[in-house]
């Protein structure tokens, strides 16, 4: 491990359907927000990291070039990283590497998406190879449905219990979003509404699924020296983990999901965490689908395999529970893909610096953030703490 690194500020757009601005203007909103929050000038920044979904999403290739102006990147080194849904965490890890290596003291990290300008499912179809697999995978819902049902059948969890746990998650998060000024979908839901919503791909229904959001998130990663100079509050990077599996869907087990388990283990080892459910105060888990959130609880060691539903129904992972998960509403309520993972990191940073406002978990000192990318292929985790 290199030098200590802290996140000293973040900025988010109000996520949603944003035809009121063009794409560069959207990114600018997040960048201006973080500059204002921390009080820095472009000349203070040593480098810029940017990422988003593949260019085909918005039809302009090389978005880091497109946004050079609004990223204040003119005359500076810029790195792009794209890892599909896990882009945001990859961006955070890249910013972290740059500063911890000693080669930069202050790095601007930005992720964005303007999904409503493209066709997201058609774009995501191109992630799947055209020789063997593209005919059989019908967008994200199909993949997650397959994963979820394989898990519930293997561990003998009754369908009704899985449905009940997923419904609980949906109701809680859509409600939690009212306390998050940046969230896209905020809704008070009943069990009846969630259980009987339109089927997308069984068992996934409308309220089990994330929205199509436009949004951007910007963050500043700083060395200890810079954090002392600029920040009133800092969120220190305590652990990172990133792991992936073979390309083809079918080559590895997505239930006892190695990349998720390993990414968490790497981050825990680095942070010195032995009992995540006890030691973490809050977890911002990437949750575009309610069912998948249950599986992450198990893969991250928050509970044993097969137990997530029971614990969820007991409220262990709710706002007032032992380990609150996604008090921001999570990806389920807001999903501008290229920014989403970074938003998880930003939310974790807000929690451990006591700046999460209405959705603050009181006394939070150690937070996990996570995102997944590809056809259930890669998982990344960053753990932040209030102490160095």
């Amino acid at each position, binding site marked *: 491990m290199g030098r200590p690194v802290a996140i000293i500020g973040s900025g988010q757009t109000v996520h949603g*359907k944003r035809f*009121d601005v063009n794409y560069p203007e959207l990114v600018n909103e997040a960048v201006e927000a973080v500059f204002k929050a921390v009080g820095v000038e472009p000349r203070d920044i040593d480098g810029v990291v940017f990422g988003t979904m593949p260019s085909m999403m918005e*039809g302009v290739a090389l978005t880091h070039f497109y946004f050079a102006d609004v990223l204040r990147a003119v005359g500076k080194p810029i790195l792009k990283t794209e890892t599909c849904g896990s882009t945001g965490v990859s961006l955070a890890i890249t910013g972290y590497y740059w500063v911890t290596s000693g080669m930069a003291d202050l790095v601007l990290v930005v992720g964005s998406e303007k999904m409503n300008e493209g066709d997201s499912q058609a774009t995501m179809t191109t992630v799947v190879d055209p*020789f063997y697999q593209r005919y059989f995978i019908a967008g994200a819902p199909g993949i997650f449905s*397959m994963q979820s049902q394989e898990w519930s059948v293997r561990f003998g969890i009754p369908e009704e219990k899985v449905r009940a746990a997923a419904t609980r998650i949906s109701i809680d998060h859509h409600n939690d979003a009212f306390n998050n000024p940046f969230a896209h979908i905020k809704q008070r839901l009943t069990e009846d509404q969630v259980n009987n919503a339109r089927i997308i791909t069984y068992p996934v229904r409308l309220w089990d699924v994330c929205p199509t959001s436009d949004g951007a998130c910007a963050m500043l990663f700083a060395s200890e020296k810079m954090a002392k100079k600029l920040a009133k509050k800092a969120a220190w990077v305590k652990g990172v983990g990133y792991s992936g599996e073979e390309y*083809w869907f079918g*080559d590895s087990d997505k239930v006892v999901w190695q990349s998720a388990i390993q990414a968490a283990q790497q981050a825990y080892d680095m942070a010195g965490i032995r009992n995540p459910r006890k030691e973490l105060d809050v977890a911002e888990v990437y949750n575009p689908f309610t069912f998948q959130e249950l599986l992450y609880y198990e893969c991250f060691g928050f509970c044993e395999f097969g137990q997530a539903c029971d614990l969820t129904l007991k409220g262990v992972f709710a706002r007032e529970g032992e380990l609150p998960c996604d008090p921001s509403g999570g990806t389920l309520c807001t999903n501008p893909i290229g920014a989403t993972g970074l938003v998880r990191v930003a939310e974790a940073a807000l929690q451990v610096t006591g700046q999460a406002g209405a959705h603050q978990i009181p006394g939070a000192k150690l937070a996990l953030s996570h995102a997944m990318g590809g056809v259930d292929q890669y998982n990344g985790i960053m753990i932040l703490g209030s102490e160095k």
Partner: protein
Amino acid sequence: MAEEKKVDYDVVTDEVAIPYELAYGETWTRFFDGLKVEKILGSRCKGCQRVLVPARSYCPRCFEEIHDFIEVSQEGVIVSWVLTEYEYFGMPTKPPFIGALIRLDGTDSNFLHLIGGIDLSDAEYVRRTIKNGMRVTVVWNAEKKGHILDIKYFKPLL
């Protein structure tokens, strides 16, 4: 719902069409030539001894080259499946269809393809009928093009 800002700004519509011609390479050509003569080819890694299908030239876990191509069974079990009924722009397969991961007998990876040969119009019927662990067998297309859909689908052995 979060309020969407009222906007009267222009929206420019455009469609990008990009043509590609993708090379198969030696290994995949061999796999697809196998389909043409109704064979499903897999490869056995000398390192881990796993049989991987579709055949490949390289084991992603041992990082070793694979030269052992073997013909694998055309029957297996469903590991997982999903019925797709919704449609989106440019979808390669018209719904309704069932995508499934199938563990062909004697292999160590799951093969992604379609389950067919049953009535897909009634989702409840499909859910009652198709189960993980169910045995399925290949149904070939009469016409072969050296394409993954030379296999029409896998039929449940009910």
